[in-house]
């Protein structure tokens, strides 16, 4: 499998009155063609910010550094117009809340058709035909009759189908799905996940699924990246993350999942709080809550290959220690 998306040392900072908020810090990551890659972490850990940075949709108060290679182009160096041409065409995004991500004054069918006409020089009726086919494809019954309906005539699940149809209109090679099921109830959730899985199979679309729901990850993802407070701490195939999590944060996160054997009312939690990202702890950002914290943790642990497909950024890991030594040496050599 070839690499579709490669992030190297991506940092995202927001300028605020209280100083710069470091929302994403030194994230390096590779997404293979055709896979469903899960990006998990708690609210505010930088998952959505990272996706917005890839799409070039961050406000001007944000500064993005590092490099993002997407099929031979560096997205961060691309002029605005070229980036616009990619958006909705080669890569697209599914937003969290279908109640707010559709324009309330716009017929749903036209929102799909607009995605086509923004990128293809096609006649209006051709775009309409294509949009109708897409709506039928994602399971909107009586698409012809629904085409001119405003979003509020549709249920949440139906709306999310429309959003998905919009995202797939030009058969992009990459879809960023930002919590696509969070705002939906459980039965609709599994329908939407089935739909995504089915579309991946049919269109060979690569999907980056951003979620805080480990259940969703287990159901649908091939590989998972775990983020904490803006840092990517662990990347592994989904089965391995659940079987043998290596990073203390991942372990704590999985331990916090309620299980059937647990006594009622005894939810396990991770002690402490998420650090303030205006002034994050130096080095590993989980160090303030980590049970194994030690001296080295004031240095940023590099993400390193523990095995071929399992990466971890923790000083407990020999791989990280090796990589750290190497980094240190090269940094010293350069100085």
């Amino acid at each position, binding site marked *: 499998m070839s690499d579709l998306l490669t992030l190297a040392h991506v940092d995202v900072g927001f300028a605020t009155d209280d100083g710069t908020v470091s929302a994403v810090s030194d994230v390096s990551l590779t997404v293979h063609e055709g896979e469903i890659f899960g990006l998990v972490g708690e609210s505010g850990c930088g998952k959505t910010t990272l996706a917005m940075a890839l*799409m070039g*949709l961050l406000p*001007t108060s944000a500064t993005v550094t590092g490099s993002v290679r997407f099929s031979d182009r560096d997205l961060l160096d691309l002029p605005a117009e070229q980036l*616009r*041409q*990619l*958006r*909705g*065409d080669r890569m*697209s*995004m599914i*937003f969290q*809340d279908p109640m*707010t*991500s*559709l*324009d*309330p*004054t*716009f*017929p749903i069918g036209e*929102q799909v058709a*607009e*995605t086509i006409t*923004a*990128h293809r020089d096609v006649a209006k009726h051709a775009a309409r035909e294509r949009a109708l086919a897409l709506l039928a494809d994602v399971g909107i019954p009586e698409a012809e009759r629904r085409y001119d*309906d*405003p*979003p*509020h005539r549709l249920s949440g699940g139906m709306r999310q189908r429309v*959003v998905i149809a*919009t995202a797939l*209109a030009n058969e992009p090679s990459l879809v960023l799905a930002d919590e696509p099921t969070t705002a939906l109830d459980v039965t609709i959730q599994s329908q939407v996940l089935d739909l995504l899985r089915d579309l991946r199979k049919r269109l060979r679309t690569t999907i980056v699924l951003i979620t805080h729901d480990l259940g969703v990850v287990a159901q649908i993802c091939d590989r998972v990246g775990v983020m904490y407070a803006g840092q990517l701490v662990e990347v592994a195939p989904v089965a391995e993350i659940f079987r043998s999590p290596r990073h203390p944060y991942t372990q704590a996160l999985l331990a916090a999942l309620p299980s059937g054997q647990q006594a009622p009312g005894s939810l396990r939690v991770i002690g402490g709080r998420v650090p303030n990202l205006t002034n994050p702890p130096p080095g590993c950002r989980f160090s303030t809550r980590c049970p194994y914290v030690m001296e080295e943790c004031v240095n940023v642990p590099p993400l390193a290959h523990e095995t071929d497909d399992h990466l971890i950024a923790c000083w407990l890991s020999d791989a990280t220690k090796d990589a750290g030594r190497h980094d240190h040496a090269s940094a010293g050599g350069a100085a």
Partner: protein
Amino acid sequence: MSVAVVDTGGRPKAVWRRGILASRKGRWGFGILTVLALIALFAPLLAPHDPNAIDATRILAPPDLAHPFGSDALGRDVLSRVIFAYRVSLGVAVGSTLVAFFVGVPLGLYAGYHGGWVDTAIMRPIDMVLALPAMLLAVALIAIIGPGSNIATLAIAVIYMPILARVVRSSTLVVVAQTYIEAARARGTRTPSIITRHVLPNAIGPAIVQATILMGFAIQIEAALSFLGLGVQPPTSSLGSMLADGRDVLTQAPWVEVFPGLAIAITVLAFNLLGDGLRARLDPKGVTE
């Protein structure tokens, strides 16, 4: 009124139709204004007499069957004069508000969408105009260019443009922060399309309400200007200049003053009813009538 307000069909056309006619106030306002607009449109057919014909035998004659509104100091039929004056006043009110709308809305939209220095460059001069008292500004403009109904229209438009620009700018700021605008950008929609197809239809509501109410006040401003002799010039008359004419004979022949005054009051009321009705439909927080 209940929350049935949500289902406006989502199209501007539907908002217009169901929006106005669904509320009682809106129906009344719309009904009265329709009648008034027809009167203004067909003034020559409806006026029973020549509005400018002087009749020395009927000086300050009280209302009777042939002249229901009586006659003025020159023996002219007040009803006919009100009908024709109404045509002028309504023309100035609608014209000025439309000019202000079509200049102010794009400016506010553009400033609100782009923000930053574009916003500052557009809105600060507009704020300066807004800081001046409206009447003073109108009088000053007319003092520079000279009186007349077109100048009055322009002066009122200059007063109104900043108001509408501000209203649109603030609703645009709210709309731009919505996820569906971000989603449109994520679809690769070009900026001009985003502004005209997504931002404008969602941000225009408050400006339509405001413009409707402003039209009512424009009748008053025009009347004030004409009352001062700065609006329409004789022999044409507007409701304001009729008020000025009637002032001298108020005690002997109140009908010369009262009927144009009533015409102003009814029109302002109708515009306000329409505006209130529209606001109740377009503003989600104003669902209770």
